[in-house]
């Protein structure tokens, strides 16, 4: 009984160690498909070792902060991960979805056997038609990265200001 338990225990420790080892051993860039993000930014919203091991906690925290308190900082926002890391289409022009091997979040999760349900609801690629300007550069006026916790509200874009200040169709009738 005890020996069986210790066997199982040992096995799981080994499995965990293997998993951790898999994580700390830097997978090659091709495996991870970092190209899309690298076109847009120098580095991630957190140092590499932090984002690799803690992104799940950050996302879960951000999730509750947004839903319950209305906090909408961009640093740990799921929408922003997707905007920066995922391109809307594959190289052949067909839509790129979570589950495809090119999808940034899939690359790693497939390797470590992690299943997530986030993309049953969340868009797994940027919606280009809706919002053409999503590809803001880090350090632009939206500069929200690396300012953990003290992010200012993003200033409304001109289009948004217009939407509020100008009459909509019908208003002038």
């Amino acid at each position, binding site marked *: 009984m005890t020996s069986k338990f210790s066997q199982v225990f040992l096995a799981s420790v080994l499995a965990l160690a293997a998993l951790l080892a898999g994580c700390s051993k830097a997978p090659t860039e091709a495996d991870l498909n970092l190209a899309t993000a690298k076109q847009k930014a120098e580095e991630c919203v957190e140092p590499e070792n932090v984002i690799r091991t803690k992104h799940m906690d950050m996302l879960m925290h951000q999730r509750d902060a947004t839903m319950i308190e209305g906090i909408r900082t961009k640093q740990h926002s799921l929408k922003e991960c997707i905007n920066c890391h995922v391109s809307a289409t594959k190289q052949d022009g067909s839509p790129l*979805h979570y589950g495809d091997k090119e999808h940034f979040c899939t690359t790693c999760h497939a390797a470590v056997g992690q299943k997530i349900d986030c993309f049953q*609801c969340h868009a797994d690629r940027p*919606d280009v038609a809706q919002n053409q300007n999503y590809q803001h550069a880090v350090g632009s006026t939206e500069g929200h990265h690396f300012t953990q916790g003290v992010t200012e509200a993003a200033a*409304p874009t001109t289009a*948004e200001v217009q939407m509020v200040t100008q009459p*909509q169709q*019908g208003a002038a009738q």
Partner: protein
Amino acid sequence: MSQNRVDEYRRKFVTALGGVAAAATVAPGFFLREAQAAGEVPTRSLDQAVTSEKRWGMLIDITKLTDGGAGMVEACKKEHGWDNNPLSRDDQKAHWARVVNVKDKLTGHSFSLPVMCQHCENPPCVDVCPTGASMKRADGIVQVNKHICIGCRYCMMACPYKARSFVHEPLTDQRSYSPRGMGTVESCNMCIHRIDEGRLPACVEAAPDAVIFGDLNDPNSAVSQALKAMGGKQIRADLNLNTGVRYHGI
């Protein structure tokens, strides 16, 4: 800040009209016209939690809605993309907002109005939720925290306005700002993503002549002023839910 610009524009517009013979026709609707499409940009910084200082609400003047609210419903559909359920039966399909036709059988008098989540101060859907997913945010917006929704649908039963629906089929390519997925309940969230950015809800934007949106807690806001001047009815006022969505002309 932009509020002032709106007013400035309206004033110019109303005086311009006044110069012509239209003054008399404009006058009765003056309040609505003056304040229409008035968005109140939150002064809140987005790293701060919302507080109960504001309570968002709207007044819908159905006498000014020539289409009974169909345009508002369309705008909502487009914004949140809830029209993508081909596999569901008609009575299962998503309806964040719908046009309700009312007819008095005795007199034959009839009218239509758009009905969506009424954003109650005392929401029955929140009372019955076993997980806390059905929630009221501090600023009065009632929504589903889908992350902890188990899809039991008690809230759908409890809602006197039939405002909620359930997603029965797998979805793809949802709007990035409006995640929706199978197995969870959903409803109008007053375009919470827009409000947080200081933009008007999509339906309000689609019917600027007929809807005023704003802070019900601020007696000087356009919507409070309009409510003070014109009244504004709650649907099923007898339930004492103190709804955030009010109607004129029903």
